[in-house]
Structure formats: C-alpha cells, structure tokens
C-alpha cells in the first residue's frame, strides 16, 4: 500500500479488526482490518467472489464472523448488537422487500421496527430522496427492478443513519437512475460513513473518496480512487499527432528529458509519451513543441479498470 494516500481523518464510525469468515474450505474473508470515518465514502472493489458481500454481511451483523471484531459508532457488534444496528442503514445485494406490501406499507413497517417516532415525516423524506412518489401506493412486486432497488435504498435511509452499507446500490438501474442514485449517495456523504460495494469502477471513481481493493478475502489496496488512477498504467500519457518530418528530432529531444519515462511510436505521425510516475507534464510538452506543426495532443486519464486488472491478476497468479 506504499505510495497511496488516504483522506483526512474524521470521527471513526466503523472499525473492523481482523475479520474472517470461512464457509467450509472456502475462505470468504481472510482477516481484513480497516476503519471508516465520518465523511468517508468507501468503495469495496473486487471481482465476484472476492468477499465484499460477506464482509458487508458481517459488518451489519447478519453473519457472525469466525474471528475478529466490528465496532459501529463505538458499539461492539458482538456485545451491543442492537445499538450498533440502530446506527446502520443497510441495502443488501438482492434489495429484498416484502412483495405483497405497498411501498408505503413496507417503509412504515421498517420505520416502526426501527422505533421512529414521526413515521410520516420519515416516509416523506425518503420517498422524496429516492424519487418514489409515483409508486408509493403500489405493491412492491408490481414494480420494475430499478424501483424495487430504490425502495430498498429508501428503507436503508428511513432512520437517517450515521452508517450506510450499500451492496451494489446501482445494480439493475438504467443509466439515468444510476446517475441519480450516485448523486444521492454523494449528497448523503456529509456527516456519515458510507461503505458501498461495486464492480463498476467508474462508479467508485465518481462517488467514493476512498477505495479498498479486495480479492480472495484480503485487502490488496486501501487508497483513494484518484491515487489509484494515478497508479494506472496510462495515467497522464500524452498522445501527440504531428507532422512526420518533425518526429525524429522531437523523439530524440524527449528521451533526454528527466520527466519523460519513455516514448512509443504508434505510426508515422503519432507517438505516446509516458511521463515519470504518472505525473502531468503537458505544460513541458507544450513548451518543447512550440513552433512545430501539431495536429493534436490528447492527455489520457488512467482507468481504474486497468489498475484493477493488474492488481487482482497479481493475486490470482
């Protein structure tokens, strides 16, 4: 994890210590430890079967760990389970809900079970937040998958929790719904600790300020999405298209620059310039090419997908 930066510290809301769970011979989670602070939106990234969902089930108290401990807002899940669960809003992976109930009836049930005093006000708030106004009196089984997921998200928010655990919150939503849920999560992040699992890396990049890469039940990287992107193979690579006659001299000159790691020629007129340590040296390149006939310069952004593949491939190997 060397070289990755973590966000600034806030109040600790989730403390996970050496958490482990085996299902027979299968090692689902293998001694993970991490902390989540108020204001953090932590993305659990990992391939299918990496242990993300099992870890979330243990944090919410649904699955008992074989080893390790979880504290939520200062409450030990093993000794003060109810107090800890009162602080958590949880959207399970399958977004389960009682299909025969209406949206309003279901949300009222969750509110009552959570001991909320002003149920009507809580209902209004989450119906608005999850944009459920149109379907609030419909039975849940008649709703589309996207709406059903939003209903489940609404129940997770009904008690205005300090800790939100969201397992694949945008799974099954169309692009517009995805964007709206991502905006909602971002708007909720102030004053809360949010843990969300996703295998959509763009989502982590857009929503999270911290990312844990998990594979085979172990944490491989604990960082920020930005720092991860900076480590991605193509981050800040400059693609230059220019007049072919100027290319040989420019390449010679680039290879002498300390900020340039290497230059790759893609065609008669196109080169990729790889900077040292993924740093941005567009300004230096502009100076160097002043006076040359440049057709285009494109600064590439490192994609999390590429780094993700590199990291998890290493573990699998």
């Amino acid at each position, binding site marked *: 994890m060397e070289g990755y930066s973590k966000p600034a510290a806030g109040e600790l809301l989730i403390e996970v210590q050496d958490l482990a769970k085996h299902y027979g011979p299968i090692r689902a989670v293998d001694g993970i430890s991490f902390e989540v602070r108020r204001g953090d939106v932590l993305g659990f990234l990992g391939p299918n079967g990496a242990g993300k969902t099992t870890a979330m089930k243990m944090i919410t*108290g649904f*699955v008992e760990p074989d080893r390790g401990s979880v504290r939520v807002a200062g409450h030990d899940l093993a000794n003060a389970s109810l107090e800890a669960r*009162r602080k958590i809003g949880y959207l399970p992976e399958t977004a*389960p809900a*009682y*299909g*025969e*109930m209406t949206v309003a009836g279901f949300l009222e*049930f969750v509110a009552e079970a959570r001991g909320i005093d002003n149920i009507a006000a809580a209902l209004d708030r989450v119906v608005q937040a999850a944009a459920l106004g149109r379907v609030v009196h419909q039975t849940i089984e008649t709703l589309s998958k996207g709406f059903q997921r939003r209903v489940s998200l609404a129940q997770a928010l009904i008690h205005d929790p300090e800790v939100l655990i969201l397992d694949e919150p945008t799974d099954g939503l169309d692009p517009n719904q995805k964007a709206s849920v991502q905006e909602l999560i971002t708007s909720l992040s102030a004053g809360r600790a949010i843990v969300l699992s996703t295998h959509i890396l763009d989502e982590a990049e857009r929503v999270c300020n911290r990312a844990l890469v998990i594979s085979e039940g172990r944490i491989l990287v604990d960082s920020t999405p930005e720092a991860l992107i900076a480590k991605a193979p193509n981050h800040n690579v400059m693609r230059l298209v220019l007049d072919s006659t100027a290319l040989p001299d420019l390449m010679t000159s680039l290879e002498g620059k300390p900020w340039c790691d290497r230059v790759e020629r893609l065609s008669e007129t196109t080169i990729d310039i790889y900077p040292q340590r993924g740093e941005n040296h567009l300004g230096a390149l502009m100076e160097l090419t002043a006076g040359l006939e440049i057709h285009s310069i494109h600064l590439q952004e490192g994609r999390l997908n590429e780094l993700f593949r590199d990291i998890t491939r290493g573990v699998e190997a």
Partner: protein
Amino acid sequence: MKAVFRREFKAYFSSPLGYVYIVIFLVASGFLTLSRDFGRMLELRQADLASFFDYLPWLFVVLVPAVAMRLWAEERKSGTVELLLTLPITLEGAYLGKFLAGWSFLGVSLFLTWPVAYQAARLGNPDWGVVLSGYLASLLTAGAFLAVGMLFSALSRNQVVAFILAVAASVAFLLLGLPQTLETIGNLLGGYVEQLFASLSLVDHFEALSRGLVELRSLVFFFLFTIGWLASGMLVLDRTRAT
C-alpha cells in the same frame, strides 16, 4: 416484536392464502363435525361440542403446517430474512412476533367456528365452561403445532419440504398418544417407558382440556412443549439464516 407481529398478521389477509385457509378450515371442520361417518353432531343431538373438538387435532396436523411453512422458508428464499435480522430487532423478538401473528390468525379461524357453538345452544343447554375449555385446548394445540411447523420452516428454504416435515412430526406426536401406539411401546420397551410416552402425549392433554378438565399439568405441558419447539426453532434459524 410488535412491528413484526403487525406485518405478519396483515400479510395473512393481504393475499388470497389467508382466506383460502379459513374457508378450507371451516368447511373441513364443519364436515367432520356433522358427517355421519365422523362427528354426527346432528344425529346425536347432544348439546356439546365434543363432535367438533374430537377431530380438530387431526385437522390441525395438516392445516397448521400450511400456516407455518411460509413463516421463515419464504423469508430465507426471498432474502428478506437479511433485511429483517439486520433491523434492531432480536432474533427472538422476530421469531415470537411471527409465532404470535400465526397463532392469532389460527385464533381468528377458530373464532369463526362460533356457528357450531350456536348450533349446540339450539340443541339444548351446553356447559359453556366446557365449550370454552375446548376452545382453549384447540388454541393451545394449534400453537403447539405452529411451533413445530416453524422449526421446519426455519430449517428449509423450500416451503413444501417444510410442510411435509412439519406434518410428519405433528402426526408422530398425535400417534404417540393413541392407545395402540402406547401398547406397542409398552410391549417393546416396558411399562415405565409407556408411561413416559403417555405423559408426553398431546392427545391426552388435549382431550382432558376439551372435556372441561382444566389441569395445571396440561397447561404446563402445552407451555413447555410450545416453548421447547420455539427455542429449538430459534437455534435452528440462528444457524441457517445466512445459508
């Protein structure tokens, strides 16, 4: 627990299942009470409900597991068990809430048999203490079978499997109290074991109560029987909930 109770109780009436159950129960119990081959209430013309109560346990062994089978199996299959058990409710509270809802539903079904009592009143002057005691016996037996059924519902995600296992277990507990069964047990294992099994017989305690003999030992039996199965069911659910 209150929220779970309310949700579950309403659920029986928010789908056709609850109404279908009530209709089947009323038709079947009415048939067994009035039929010439079974209760013969109209032929005997006795101002009591013995014709009605005598066959209820046999009806319950089939119909109560039908009420119990969905209680946890459906939650586990649909994944709502994960939602329910991560709310700030204890497993015991959720389990009891569901049990009480199911038991109340069975109580409503029993209440709807009042025309049988009305018919007995038309035939003469029934001993209402015995009638009430019979209803108490029926309610306690229904609760006992419900507790049995809930354990199997917690054990299996498949409602049909839960139903079959619950019927088998309930039938076994009824057969245990039959004289023929006890005699066989006595012959095989001796008189002491026969007495032990007789004291565990649900039929004996039901019959005693339904004939107006309200004894503490019968009430304690039903209480311990039901609590024992409920506690076992909670342990089973705790083991199986995440599988």
